[in-house]
């Protein structure tokens, strides 16, 4: 199976005032990410770093031209997710996810996200816990 056959490119980018201080980061998100912009990213997980201070997700995202770029997206602390029943194994490489994200201010392929789902909309690493 072609590795990137299921990937889609960046779906939309639109400015929304989004105060994400309640996103429970160890630092001020607005210093690193533009929290006034929110977009949705869809891609295939290539790696999950289950570390403090932030979990990092790496995903391959395909654009409208079929070009694939690797993105890195920061999530919250793994400690909080662990207590909610989540484990690194819940998101194995190859999984396609959708992430609601804020872009990094340095314009790199870096984002911050606190809301991700599987491609079918099932929440993953959510604060409602792993039921």
């Amino acid at each position: 199976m072609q590795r990137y056959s299921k990937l889609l490119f960046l779906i939309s980018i639109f400015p929304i005032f989004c105060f994400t201080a309640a996103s429970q980061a160890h630092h001020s998100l607005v210093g690193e990410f533009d929290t006034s912009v929110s977009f949705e990213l869809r891609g295939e997980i290539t790696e999950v770093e289950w570390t403090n201070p932030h979990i990092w997700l790496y995903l391959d995202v395909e654009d409208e031209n079929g070009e694939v770029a690797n993105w890195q997206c920061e999530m919250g602390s793994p400690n909080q997710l662990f207590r909610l029943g989540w484990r690194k194994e819940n998101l194995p490489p190859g999984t396609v996810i959708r992430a609601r994200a804020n872009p990094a201010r340095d314009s790199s392929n870096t984002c911050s996200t606190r809301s991700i789902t599987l491609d079918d909309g099932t929440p993953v690493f959510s604060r409602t816990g792993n039921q």
Partner: protein
Amino acid sequence: MITLKHTLSTLLSVFLAAGICQQTFAQQDGEIPRTASGKPDFNGVWEFAYVPDMAATNGRNQFGPGELPFTEAGQRNFDNYNPTTGDYTGACLPFGHVRSMNSPNPVKFFQTDSDFAYLFEVNNWHKSFPIDGNPDPFALPATWYGNANATWDGDTLVVTSGNYNGKTRLDTVGHPHSHKITVTERFTLRDALSLDYEITIDDPIYYSEPWSNRRIFTRMTDGFGLLEYSCNENNKGLWEGRILVPDYDNWHTYDTEE
């Protein structure tokens, strides 16, 4: 058009909110755990609301004062706060006492008859101090977490801290504090599983009068205890240049020689 139904609904909401607030901090009648010496027993792991803004209220378990009584220097400092030019917590410098108590991670209280310690999960920092030891907080060097002493006021533990180095901020949104801040905390067990917490900030440089934030802490019973938290182990934001270390030469908006 404001209808009678709307007015009654609004009044009902106000009365319910007042009732909830009254109940939240009313004296509880339930049994509280006690140590062998008869003091309220705070030992254990406690979780609390993440408080990114100490002035705000979430209506559930943390209640801020609303508008803060800034001095001119305080308002200027807060208005000028810009984490894009430097974020000390993002750089994994010590978060500080108040910021740690505002974090989204739990704290473990370790209590004996003579000493008390906060073991913060956030970045594995701690703050320990005597109970009724009456040390002079200025006898030791200024610190990121302040120097403290605790005493009992009935069944309430009162912790007073001073001699901070002034290099931290109170919360995520950047409310400032100076090296002249005094922090007073009051812990009162409601029952075996919850406690009332009140923190009072008294900083004559940045605030014209003391102000307080109140919360309810909940004892954690998931059995995990504290989990390790190393801020430095994978701080990509700092390593890749998206987070900067603060310019401490221009951190404050008053003459630091005062």
